[in-house]
């Protein structure tokens, strides 16, 4: 293992912020794995730390293939994590909206540039990231339609789903998007925790990465082969919203099969305790995402369901 300082930010009031990369194996830059870019992405840091532990052992055992190298960057934003903030500590900007970065620009543009110049020439890029809304997903590989994305390759993770959605203007400054522009085959891996550690879901993500590296002949590692991934397009999911606001009592978890008409949740009046809305599933399907705030706004998206033809 080689520890490398990728970027250092000086500060008058705090210890310097150091972004570190941990690399394994020698030769061709095969895969780069990036964890937290936001201060609340602790699950992402945890997953990276576990991968570093495993790669260290694999390297010792000579199981990183000849002429292949791996680098893991557990966090690009320890400053925010250390003060329990999601976005950048001073100006609240989002480092994952600053790529490819600019080394003469604003602070977070410089941070992004410092990371990007170290990660942009790998063959594969894997990012552990989080969604802007509080909630849980079925573990999946997420990709944007950029013209460069490779769905078949994404299935090598063996996660239950490969999810693709349309790219929007604000996506063009994410790490994933810029990796793809620079011809790195990039994947974002979502698990169902962000600001807490979910060990079981972390294990699933770790297994998925090891599976991917094994199938693409970067490491030698036999593990559970995972699933035959199902490919889904964002627009085919069925969104379920609440029309009213109140306390959100959720009845269905992710990865649960639901039948049309099943009660997914109730919205309770916070003063009287009476139900003001009962949220029913509009289709047969599988719960892909659910929100998990205790209280919700009206119009809030609560569930996303993968429709299925289940007749039983």
């Amino acid at each position, binding site marked *: 293992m080689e520890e490398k300082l990728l970027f250092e*930010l*000086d500060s*008058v009031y705090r210890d310097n912020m150091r972004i570190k990369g941990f690399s394994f194996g020698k030769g061709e830059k095969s895969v780069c794995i990036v964890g937290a870019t936001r201060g609340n992405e602790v699950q992402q840091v945890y997953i990276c730390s576990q991968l570093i532990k495993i790669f260290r052992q694999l390297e010792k055992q000579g199981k990183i293939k000849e002429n292949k190298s791996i680098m893991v960057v557990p966090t690009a934003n320890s400053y925010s994590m250390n003060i329990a903030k*999601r976005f950048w500590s*001073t100006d609240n900007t989002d480092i994952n909206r600053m790529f490819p970065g600019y080394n*003469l620009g604003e602070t977070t543009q410089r941070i992004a540039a410092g990371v990007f110049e170290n990660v942009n020439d790998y063959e594969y890029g894997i990012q552990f990231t989080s969604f802007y809304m509080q909630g849980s997903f079925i573990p999946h590989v997420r990709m944007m339609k950029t013209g460069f994305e490779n769905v078949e390759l994404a299935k090598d993770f063996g996660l239950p789903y490969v999810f693709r959605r349309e790219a929007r*203007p604000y996506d063009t400054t994410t790490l994933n998007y810029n990796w793809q522009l620079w011809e790195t085959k990039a994947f974002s891996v979502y698990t169902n925790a962000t600001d807490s550690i979910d060990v079981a879901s972390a294990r699933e993500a770790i297994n998925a990465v090891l599976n991917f590296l094994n199938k693409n002949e970067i490491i030698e590692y036999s593990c559970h082969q995972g699933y035959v991934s199902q490919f889904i397009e964002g627009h085919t999911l069925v969104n379920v919203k609440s029309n009213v606001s109140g306390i959100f009592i959720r009845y269905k978890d992710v990865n649960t099969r639901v039948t049309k008409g099943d009660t997914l949740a109730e919205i309770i009046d916070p003063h009287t305790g009476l139900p003001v809305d009962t949220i029913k599933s509009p289709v047969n399907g599988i719960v892909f995402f659910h929100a998990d705030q205790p209280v919700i*706004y*009206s*119009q809030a998206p609560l569930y996303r369901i993968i429709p299925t033809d289940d007749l039983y």
Partner: protein
Amino acid sequence: MIQTIASVGLPIDETLMIKKNRLIPQSGLNGNEKRISIVTGTHGDELEGQYVCFELQRRIKENYSALKGIVDVYPALNPLGIDSITRGIPAFDLDMNRIFPGSENGSMPEYIASKIIGDLIGSDVVIDIHASNIFLKEIPQVRINELSRDVLVPYAKLINVDYIWIHSSATVLESTLAYSLNSIGTPTLVVEMGVGMRITKNYGDQLVDGIFALMKELGIWSGETAAPKTPIISEDGEVSFINAGSSGVFLPSVEHWKNVKKGDCIGKILNPLTGEVNETIFAQNDGIVFTLREYPIVSEGSLIARILA
């Protein structure tokens, strides 16, 4: 006439409402009136537009018979942000100016964005007033995406600002309110002026004079107006950026909107612990300082000034 253009229920006994005030001619509407919309408060920490909304209406009401068209005033597109001193949309931590045109079926921010667009469509001109952020002080200016320069520059010249900055287009900016409206044929000017969390009254008065001049040109106002000043117009190539090379406390030694010569000292970055000067910042070229750092604490990369050659 106060109207609610979007409302969303909040969890505990509160409704979020986006409101506008519509002023119409005393004689009523014949259906052919022009309409100007003044919007502000997308970023909850930018307050300069609050005074403009007030002062514009105060002057109209002083001479109501001169009003010949429709004036729609939207003081707070992000009312929760303004009330809680939050730049983005509270609870979502989302920049509201990155979610337009929004969607009727989206989450709360997207839903509101789509309602706002739906209400603004068809205005003859929209003026979207911003106030920089808490870090930088800006001279009254209009920022125009080069894609819409032909349509917007004639309007921008009327609204009595000091400066018009025509900037290149970037994909990420396609989700702003102004881009969304301009792309569907509703001309929208973005004004930047002053500094976050403060009101600079003379800038507000200056812009209100300009809005009246524009309303007169559009046939919305028949009263007396002051002749707008002639703005400097520039493109990206003429603007240079100065960023901090080290962290510390920035103390400027130039005044905002004053000329500097190449080699002049712009300011110093001080170290309060050691008593040393961490960095002395010099102008790289002759020009005028139209953006100047207001918030003293800086880190490496913080924008210190923008200079127009």
